[in-house]
């Protein structure tokens, strides 16, 4: 770009400087094309913009595609067995017939119990780490520990569970021990989700409250928690979905190959006691696929569909909740 602006404007309407010689009331018509036509640089920018958009969109589609394929394939394969009675009946005849009631209830109990153990601990620890802890070596070590805990493979968690809960704490192989192992595994994820939710609340809000003489707890209770509880819930629900699908941590700590539970009447809703061993969907799928002969393929796929659907449903719930709460965001 060269020259002062008035020269360029004059060139755009094909006039030379000094040539404009008008009477009062006259006007110079300007053709918009002279001013608003895109230069080659702008055209090229537009092409690049389109390419970038298409690439990003393609990648997003590539993410969604496998999910749809897997789910579609599973449903098609499992179609013959999918029915309410499949959900509500126990496995029969050495697992080759019947439904999946026992493992389904087992998974629910496991996840619920582990949530009861880890949600309070994780959320309170996250609040402490984010709101109270100063940035010193102690906090850094705790953060490091949390990150490492999140990176530990689930089979190692399983062995830890055997050592700590089954043997040392004397729980034996039981629902309780398995839930505690799942809880330990979920803890770092919940702590991280809590901290992220808290971090999303601007620091200026906290400082405004502190400036008015509010204590840290008053600030947390009145400003921080009401605006971050949604994020925490979302994190917890995501964690539920993950825990439901885990096999390794419960393999040695409480899940069994087969245990008969009542599938009629009220007692069928709470069939396991804390000290009982239980069945679980993920474990059930594993045993059906590898340990049992002559299992009809549909039963196998039916179990997979239920497990997958469960996870999908829980995740959708979480995403829906987040979308709803975000629409009510206050700043």
């Amino acid at each position, binding site marked *: 770009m060269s020259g002062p602006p008035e020269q360029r404007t004059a060139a755009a309407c094909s006039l030379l400087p000094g040539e404009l010689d008008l009477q009062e009331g006259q006007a110079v018509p300007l053709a918009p094309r002279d001013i608003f036509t895109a230069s080659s640089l702008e055209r090229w920018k537009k092409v690049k913009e389109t390419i970038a958009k298409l690439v990003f969109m393609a990648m997003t589609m590539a993410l969604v595609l496998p999910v749809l394929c897997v789910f579609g394939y599973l449903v098609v394969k499992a179609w013959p067995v999918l029915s309410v009675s499949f959900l509500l009946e126990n496995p029969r005849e050495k697992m080759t017939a019947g439904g999946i009631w026992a493992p389904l209830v087992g998974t629910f109990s496991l996840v619920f119990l582990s949530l009861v153990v880890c949600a309070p601990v994780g959320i309170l620890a996250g609040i402490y780490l984010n709101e109270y802890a100063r940035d010193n070596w102690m906090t850094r070590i705790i953060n490091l520990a949390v990150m490492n805990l999140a990176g530990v493979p689930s089979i190692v968690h399983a062995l830890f569970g055997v050592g700590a809960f089954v043997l040392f704490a004397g729980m034996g192989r039981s629902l309780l021990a398995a839930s505690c192992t799942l809880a330990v595994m979920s803890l770092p994820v919940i702590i991280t989700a809590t901290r992220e939710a808290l971090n999303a609340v601007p620091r*200026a809000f906290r*400082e405004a409250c502190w400036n*008015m*003489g*509010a204590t840290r707890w008053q600030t947390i209770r009145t400003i921080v928690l009401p605006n971050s509880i949604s994020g925490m819930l979302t994190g917890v629900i995501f964690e539920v979905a993950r825990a439901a699908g885990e096999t390794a941590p419960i393999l040695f700590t409480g899940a069994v190959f087969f245990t008969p539970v009542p599938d009629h009447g009220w007692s069928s809703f709470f069939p396991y006691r804390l000290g009982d061993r239980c069945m679980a969907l993920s474990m059930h799928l594993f045993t059906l696929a590898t340990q049992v002969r002559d299992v009809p393929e549909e039963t196998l796929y039916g179990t997979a569909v239920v497990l997958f659907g469960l996870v999908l449903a829980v995740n959708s719930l979480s995403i829906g909740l987040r979308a709803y709460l975000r629409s009510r965001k*206050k*700043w």
Partner: protein
Amino acid sequence: MNASIRFSQVSVSYGPKAALRDVTLEIPEKQIFGIIGPANSGKTTLLKCINRTIDFVPSARVTGEVLVRGQNVFRVGRKQRWVALANLGKRGAWRTRAFLGRVLRKAGPAAPPDSRSPDPIRSVYDLRRRVGMVFPLPVGLPLSVYENVAYAPRRAGIHDRHELDALVEKCLRQAMLWDEVKDRLDMLGTRLSGGQQQRLTLARALSHRPQILCLDEFSIAIDPVTTMKIEDILLELKEQMTIVVATNLVHQARRLADRTAFFSDSRLIEVDDTETLFTRPANRLTERFVNGEFG
């Protein structure tokens, strides 16, 4: 003339960077005290020392004393227990002597000893309630307009609806916001415009009935007309409280302040009556700044 706030040899550094160097300063009671200086000269840091919000900057190191109403803010609430115990001991001794005096029919001590300062600052939260703070960028809490202003009174234990209503109206009126929001007190404070939020912040700062009001470049986000209105309000309020105005608008300080301090490069360069500082500054740097030659 009582000193409301006294800084003695205060130095603050954020990590290796010094923000205040050896500041000794007295801020008199029930006046408007102006602090002027270019950006990055330590004005905000000075204000943060008054209500100890400097504590929230993890890297800040503070040396020296800041006295608010004669109490060192960095020791507030720390040794209260021992002070209380000592007072108990003194009162106990006085009672014993008074009792013995009655028994022995002699004249006892005249009056109970009262070593406590009247109305001491009990804790750092008490300190912050006594100091209203308005920062340059407006912050509306994610609560309704009403709750924004009622926040501090509620925390201080006022729950009576009528009392709260009256207080909220008074504070909003003082901040020149009442007429604009009186019909929509239920609206979220964060939905107000920037200038309105700034006045909401001022109303909030007044809501805990501070004895000291600190304003840090309060007029950045509001229009000139409102600024002038608020300046009038400040001139009225100085009958009731000490007001500290940090500003980089030199003329604002000249209009408002009774005394003015000039800061530059984290040092206190000069402090004097506003008229003197602006007409016959002792320092060459001050003269250049108030005449708009640098900064």
